[in-house]
Every structure is written in structure tokens, then in C-alpha cells.
């Protein structure tokens, strides 16, 4: 039987506010445990929440980014359950009246462009963290994360395979980073994906029973987890079994998934409007003001890179995908006045080095301005492209502050002195008489290829600093 996969996503996006959604505690990542958890976050008796305006601004910006209706009247509710990392005994969230109504994102896969509908997005608070290492048979609780603002984005079940789901996740990541409402650091939990998966016989309208794989924090794990779960469901169904609705956990290290012991009655959350918080009302003027702050989105950026800089669509797509890359590229392009060269370097040398050292562009030791300095010197023929890489490595190692400083210190200026180049070439011709003989005897169509040997030797002798056009001209003349 042919099966069809149906996938919907729930994505938790941590908003990049400085303080928490209902308290003035810091949201900075990586602090000592419980140093950013105040009386409100700890649910001390008598404390009351006060909502953070910035969380609303960011949620509205997101809503506008997915072409959604913004609900001008939104209400917080209590989702009741007991867990030690949730000191209040309920999560403050939105249910019946979320801030962001239906919207959509367009994704692009090998099959073309497709619209994925977003059911809604709501504001809520994050919980703390439970550490289950053995503390004398007890669990440790860190409440620094408790109260960090989240938007939970709920998609419609519009995706039909892992590729589409990952494309949607990446598109969402690009959007929230471009809007600067989330730092996008998935390894720190800034975006977490829950994937709802079901399969049904192709052509059947009724959805199959779904499972939910929770808390995936990388695109790769998401892809693997979906493939694995689809395979599992099909094999269960084909051997006559039934799918149980359950929550599953995928382990990216072992490449295995397991069913989470379902907490009995865990889905009975007894929501009700939070009496501590009044409805939030946003007027047209406010929403219009937020709309004015909307930065250029990745799709528009990609078009601009093609039309203004003449970049190929593929390169424009890579450079515009996230705001860090786009900013780095644009800074290097502006500093050097060489957008095409900057594009080639950011996609080529820069990302190769980052991959090799396993660091993110955010932490790149060579700044975009420094790269711009290198490119400027390549473009005005002060150095060769090869020397450019030497300068890049030196800046990476912190050997200097600017490209010019390193060029001077290492003596990397292009050798355009005809006398010096002639001397190099004469030495090579003298040392390689056999190759010279066969070059001169070769037919013209072979000569071009054989010339490469001499060019290579001469470049090497000049330590990569010979002006390539000049070198070739002298070589050709002398080899006649």
C-alpha cells in the first residue's frame, strides 16, 4: 500500500527580550543557576505578574511577518499541571484568544513553492529546568529560564515529508532571526520543535492517529526523527497493528526514539482566564507603528542581492537566509565596494574556515570590516587572491588588526617589478631544461596546458605574490 505522511509542527521560540515576560529578572543565557529567578518567578505568595511590553511588540512583529491577523484583544490563561520546574502550578499562556491569528509561510523544496498555514501563535512563559543527576535521590531545579517569554507557533498539518518540515523550520528560523525577535541559537534551546506525525493510505481523507515527537533542537535531528517515526508507523500498520497516540522522545546520539511514559491525565489542564492579568488591548496605531519597524525580510533581501549586486539566485539565497550572514556579507561588501567578491568569500573561504573550527559566524575572529579590507586590496591588485587567504589566516590568528597591517608586515604586495619577475622566470627555465624542450616541441593546443607547470613554479618561487597577468606575459615571451 502507498502511504502518505502528514506533519504539523509546534515551535517554541524564545523571545530576545532583556527581562522576563512577567518579571524584571534577566533572561541572559548561561548564568549561575537560580541567580536570575526573582520572587515572581519563584511564585512567592503575594507576588503579581506585570506583562513586558517588548514581548508583545515582538509577537506582533512575528504576526505581521507571517501575514497573520493580529488579535487586538488577547487574554492570558492558566494551564494547570504540577511539575517542580513550574513553581506556580500553572503555566501562564494563551488559549482562546491568542495574540497572533491565522497566517502562513511559503516554503521552497525540490517540488517547488508551497504555502504552509499557521493556525495561530500565542505568548506564554517558559518553565525552569529539572536536572535529574543524582542529588542524593533528589532532583535539582534551576529556575533561571522560568518566565522567559516564548511564542508558540502552531502550524496546520500541511507538510507531507521530512524535507517540507525541515524547510518550514528553517524558514521560521530565518524569519525570527531577521525580525531580531529570537537569537536563533538552537543548541541553547532558543527554538524547540515538537513534531506531530501521522500516516494514512494515499487518497484517504481521514487523518491517521498521530504521535508527537517533542523537543527537537536541530534541523538534522528533526529530519532523522521524522524519517524514523514514519518508518515505524508504516511498519506497525502494515503488520496489522494500531498507532497509539503518545509523546515520543528522539535521541540524536543513539538515533533511537522511545515513548515517553505518558503522564496519566496529563492532558487535562483545566485552563481558565488568569485573574492576575487583565486583557491586553492593542490599538490600530500601535500595530501600525510596529509595522513601520518591520525590517527587510530574507526573501526581499535575496531579490535585492540579485538585482543590486548581480549575485546568482543561489548565492543570494544563502547570504540572505539569516540576519547574521546577511549583515556580515553587507558590511564586507560595503567596506570593500566589492559585493561579488564579498559573496564568494563569505560562501567560500569564510564558511569553510568556520566549519573547520566548528564555530558560528557570530564568533568569527575575522570581522566583516577586516574581510572588507582584504577584498579591497585584492580588487586594487595590491595582493593576489592567494595572498588574500594568507592575510585572512593571519587576521584569524590575531596577528594584526587590519589587512593593510598584515600585508606590510608580511611583505605580501604583488611583485609587479618586471626585472624581479624576469629573474624568477629565467631561473625556472634554466632549472627545467627538459620541460622547456618538450614545451617548445609541443603542438599549440597542448602548449596552453603545459604552460601551467611553469606558471605554478613561478608563482611558488614568488611566494604567490607575482602579478599573474604580468607573469604569464613574460613566461610566454621567454618560452617562445
Amino acid at each position: 500500500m502507498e502511504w502518505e505522511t502528514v506533519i504539523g509542527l509546534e515551535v517554541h521560540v524564545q523571545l530576545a527580550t532583556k527581562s522576563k515576560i512577567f518579571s524584571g529578572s534577566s533572561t541572559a543565557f548561561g548564568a549561575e543557576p537560580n541567580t536570575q529567578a526573582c520572587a515572581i518567578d519563584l511564585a512567592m505568595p503575594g507576588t503579581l505578574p506585570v506583562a513586558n511590553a517588548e514581548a508583545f511588540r515582538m509577537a506582533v512583529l512575528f504576526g505581521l511577518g507571517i501575514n497573520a491577523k493580529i488579535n487586538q484583544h488577547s487574554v492570558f490563561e492558566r494551564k494547570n499541571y504540577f511539575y517542580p520546574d513550574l513553581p506556580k502550578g500553572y503555566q501562564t499562556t494563551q488559549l482562546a484568544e491568542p495574540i497572533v491569528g491565522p497566517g502562513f509561510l511559503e516554503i521552497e523544496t525540490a517540488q517547488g513553492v508551497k504555502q504552509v498555514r499557521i493556525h495561530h501563535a500565542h505568548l506564554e512563559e517558559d518553565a525552569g529546568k529539572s536536572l535529574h543527576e543524582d542529588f542524593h535521590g533528589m532532583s535539582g531545579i534551576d529556575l533561571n529560564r522560568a518566565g522567559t517569554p516564548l511564542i508558540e507557533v502552531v502550524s496546520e498539518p500541511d507538510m507531507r515529508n521530512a524535507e517540507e518540515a525541515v524547510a518550514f523550520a528553517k524558514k521560521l528560523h530565518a524569519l525570527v532571526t531577521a525580525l531580531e525577535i529570537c537569537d536563533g541559537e538552537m543548541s541553547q534551546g532558543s527554538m524547540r520543535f515538537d513534531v506531530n506525525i501521522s500516516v494514512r493510505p494515499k487518497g484517504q481523507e481521514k487523518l491517521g492517529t498521530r504521535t508527537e515527537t517533542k523537543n527537537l533542537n536541530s534541523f538534522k535531528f528533526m529530519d532523522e526523527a521524522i524519517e524514523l517515526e514514519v518508518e515505524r508507523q508504516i511498519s506497525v500498520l502494515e503488520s496489522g497493528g494500531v498507532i497509539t497516540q503518545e509523546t515520543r522522545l528522539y535521541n540524536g546520539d543513539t538515533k533511537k526514539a522511545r515513548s515517553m511514559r505518558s503522564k496519566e491525565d496529563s492532558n487535562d489542564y483545566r485552563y481558565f482566564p488568569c485573574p492576575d492579568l487583565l486583557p491586553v488591548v492593542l490599538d490600530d496605531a500601535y500595530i501600525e507603528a510596529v509595522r513601520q519597524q518591520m525590517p527587510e525580510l530574507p526573501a526581499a533581501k535575496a531579490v535585492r542581492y540579485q538585482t543590486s549586486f548581480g549575485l546568482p539566485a543561489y548565492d543570494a539565497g544563502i547570504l540572505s537566509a539569516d540576519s547574521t550572514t546577511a549583515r556580515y556579507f553587507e558590511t564586507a561588501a560595503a567596506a570593500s565596494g566589492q559585493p561579488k567578491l564579498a559573496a564568494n568569500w563569505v560562501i567560500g573561504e569564510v564558511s569553510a574556515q568556520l566549519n573547520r573550527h566548528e564555530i558560528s559566524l557570530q564568533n568569527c575572529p575575522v570581522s566583516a570590516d577586516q574581510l572588507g579590507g582584504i577584498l579591497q586590496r585584492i580588487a586594487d591588485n595590491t595582493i593576489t587572491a592567494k595572498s588574500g587567504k594568507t592575510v585572512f589566516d593571519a587576521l584569524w590568528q590575531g596577528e594584526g588588526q587590519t589587512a593593510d597591517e598584515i600585508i606590510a608586515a608580511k611583505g605580501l604586495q604583488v611583485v609587479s617589478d618586471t626585472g624581479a619577475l624576469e629573474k624568477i622566470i629565467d631561473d625556472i627555465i634554466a632549472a627545467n631544461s627538459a620541460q622547456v624542450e618538450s614545451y617548445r616541441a609541443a603542438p599549440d593546443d597542448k602548449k596552453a596546458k603545459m604552460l601551467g607547470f611553469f606558471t605554478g613554479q613561478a608563482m611558488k618561487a614568488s611566494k604567490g605574490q607575482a602579478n599573474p597577468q604580468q607573469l604569464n606575459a613574460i613566461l610566454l615571451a621567454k618560452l617562445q
Partner: protein
Amino acid sequence: MEPSEIEKLAKLARLHIKPEEAAEVAKRIGNVLALMDQLQATNTDAVTPMAHPLDAVQRLRADLVTEPNQREAFMAIAPATENGLYLVPKVID
């Protein structure tokens, strides 16, 4: 309310209700529910749902970090702590 429903509610609310108390609790909750039924009977077709009895909207605060670290003070009143963590009876998903 059936005793089984009382048992489920008690579990969700982490309340310990002895079996011999269940009938009495069921009766009391039943009274509250009867009152709810009376409210439900009112025709509300023309009434906008109300999220809060105060005729006001939420005031929002500026995004500023205003809370200093007071971990020592909070830890001092916690039953058990270690390495800056609050300790609780072991929980595992």
C-alpha cells in the same frame, strides 16, 4: 459527581481525599455545579464574553532588568539546596 470523578480531580489537584470523605466532597462540589447550571441557563447570546471583572486593560511595563540576584535569601528558606539548585523529591518523565 461520581466517586471516580472526585478521585480524578483530587489527583489532578494533588489533594488527598480519603475514600470515606468522597461522598461528602461529591455532594459539596455537586452544589457548586448546580449553581453553575443555573448560570448556564441564562441566555447570553447578546453578551460579549468577559475575561476579567475589572473594566480595564493590562498595563505593560518596559523591558528592563530590575530584579537583582537574591538567590542567597531565597535559598535560605528552601527545604533543600545544593550547588545553587533547589532540590525536590526525584522526578523523571
